[in-house]
């Protein structure tokens, strides 16, 4: 259906002598309604009167007409011109009056707390959280006061056993990838047996802890921050606080503990899964027996290297849990806030792991570990 131009909503400015009128014509229900400010710009210069009467001879209208008039009135008021609505149909002028009355006073402008965007205050908040965490851990050892009613079993199962399958898969495939790279390169030198060294050392020293960390960030960190975020939104964290129970002691410490205890175990498991992955590549490709491969793997990894990797994973776990819990506990009290907190915890968690690992690599090099 083509709407004839004659019926499209139009606003014309009619000037007869001293007086000005705005005449609205057309079908204000169907066609595209002109924007008030745009119309006003077109009339710039021809607006001579202080008061303008609005006349309406439209075929049909809906709330867009009222919105147009309200916009027009506001824009004209800025220029010192008033709009006279006395000629409007009764129901339309009632509608406009109602809208005018309904306009809330500007007491509720959403002024954002500027300070929370400041770098220094952000840093201070994070340091404060780390301090609180350290204090609570200190309390834990001093008073031997382990918060009751946290559901440690569920936490340990969630962090540990339930993470096993995905860790196994990821680590096995990481071992496979390393095995392939090593096999292709080392075959050129005829040093195929050393693929075992490559895979074992890479897994034990770096890949197992990093892969465990990344999987735990995605799996557990996201869960932690979403859980704590919705607890905050639902007032559960406030409810803890009002009983004098420290949210950090009750919610953060158990999670940090669970993850820090489970991650090293997962990391050890990951090393073996990675070695198995490498073996799955090497055995069919070269004339190497499984015993040979396993012997070569185990003899290449020193205890120090192994402990270094496993220790790193515990450190990463503390980082992940602390970041995830913090972002959950400070999240905005809304569904969107919980989502943002989860995203933030995963992004920050992975970044923190990689950065920490780089620092560890430099330190290890300096300290000859």
């Amino acid at each position, binding site marked *: 259906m083509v709407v004839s131009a004659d019926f499209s909503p139009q606003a014309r400015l009619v000037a007869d002598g001293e007086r000005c009128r705005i005449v609205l014509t057309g079908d204000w229900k169907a066609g595209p309604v002109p924007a008030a400010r745009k119309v006003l710009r077109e009339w710039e210069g021809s607006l001579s009167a202080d008061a303008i009467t609005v006349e309406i001879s439209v075929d049909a209208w809906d709330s867009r007409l009222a919105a147009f008039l309200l916009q027009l009135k506001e824009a004209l008021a800025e220029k010192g011109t008033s709009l006279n609505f006395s000629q409007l149909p009764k129901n339309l002028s009632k509608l406009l009056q109602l809208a005018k009355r309904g306009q809330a006073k500007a007491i509720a402008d959403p002024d954002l707390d500027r300070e929370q965007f400041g770098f220094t205050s952000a840093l201070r908040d994070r340091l404060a959280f780390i301090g609180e965490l350290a204090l609570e851990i200190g309390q834990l050892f001093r008073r031997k006061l382990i918060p009751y*009613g946290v559901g440690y079993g569920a936490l340990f199962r969630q962090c540990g056993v339930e993470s096993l399958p995905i860790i196994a898969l990821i680590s096995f495939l990481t071992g496979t990838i390393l095995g392939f790279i090593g096999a292709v390169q080392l075959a050129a030198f005829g040093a195929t047996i050393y693929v075992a060294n490559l895979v074992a050392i890479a897994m034990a020293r770096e890949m197992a802890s990093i892969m465990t960390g990344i999987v735990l960030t995605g799996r557990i960190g996201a869960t932690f921050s979403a859980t704590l975020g919705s607890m905050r939104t639902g007032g559960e964290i406030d409810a803890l606080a*009002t009983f*004098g129970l420290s949210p950090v002691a009750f919610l953060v410490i158990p999670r940090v503990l669970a993850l820090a205890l489970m991650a090293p175990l997962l990391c050890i498991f990951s090393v073996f899964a990675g070695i198995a992955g490498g073996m799955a590549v090497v055995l069919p490709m070269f004339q190497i027996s499984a015993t040979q491969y396993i012997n070569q793997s185990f003899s290449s990894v020193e205890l120090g290297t192994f402990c270094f990797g496993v220790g790193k994973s515990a450190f990463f776990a503390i980082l992940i849990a602390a970041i995830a819990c913090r972002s959950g506990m400070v999240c905005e009290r809304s569904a969107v806030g919980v989502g943002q907190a989860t995203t933030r915890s995963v992004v920050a968690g992975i970044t923190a792991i990689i950065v920490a690992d780089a620092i560890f690599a430099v330190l290890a090099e300096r300290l000859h570990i």
Partner: protein
Amino acid sequence: METERQVQPVLTVTELAIRRGNRSLLEGVSFSVAQGEIFSIIGASGCGKSSLLRILLGLDLPASGTVRLCGVDPAKLLRQGGVAVPHSYGVLFQEGALWTSMSLLENVSLPIRNYHREFSDEEITDLAIFKLALVGLGGFENFYPNQISGGMARRAAIARAIALDPPVLFLDEPSAGLDPVTARQLDELILQLRSCHGTAVVLITHDLSSIRRISDRAAFLDQESRSLLEIAPPAEMAERSPHRPVRDFFGDRLGNWPKKKAILQRVTP
């Protein structure tokens, strides 16, 4: 209903000012709540009731002024890094805010267990079951918060709030979103708790019938003047308050909004 009680106040608020960012929410709020009194804090949405509550509970700091809750200043505790005044109050948050990962029994027994370390497990469980039975939830001990209705969750949260027999009970919109019958049962429960324990109740609500039914006095917070406009028994407020916003709040008129007939006309252009 007595306006003044010759009892030591359990909660005293003096010249409290609340700001959010740079915006002032309330200024110069002063009132006190006596032991065993049911005190309502009322006012339009957005007038600062919930912000006031958070300050009374010691969850937020006031811009200025002092609060004394059972002889302790919650703001001072908060500044020192403490979170709350143990034993001195119980809170029913909006929607209950039960700990969703725990059963009702665990919800009620957690505060008891953490404050009365000398109690045996059986004692704690018995006490928690008793508290749940008080609010009419006997037999629901092993249910989880997501398995019960909104009204039951509200009652369970009251059981948790009274777990430590606090002298003051804060209730934040206890009847919001509940049907009239359940809301009345809650009111009844609040009255009974008051008469059994002598608990002072600070009630934050919009529910007119509940305000009239149970509160001894009410404080009206006004958004326009950002102040505590009036403290009086609700019946008195409804009938002869000198303040227009208070009368509007209690009255069934729609202030200066158009009459019903005009609204009907408007919908047919």
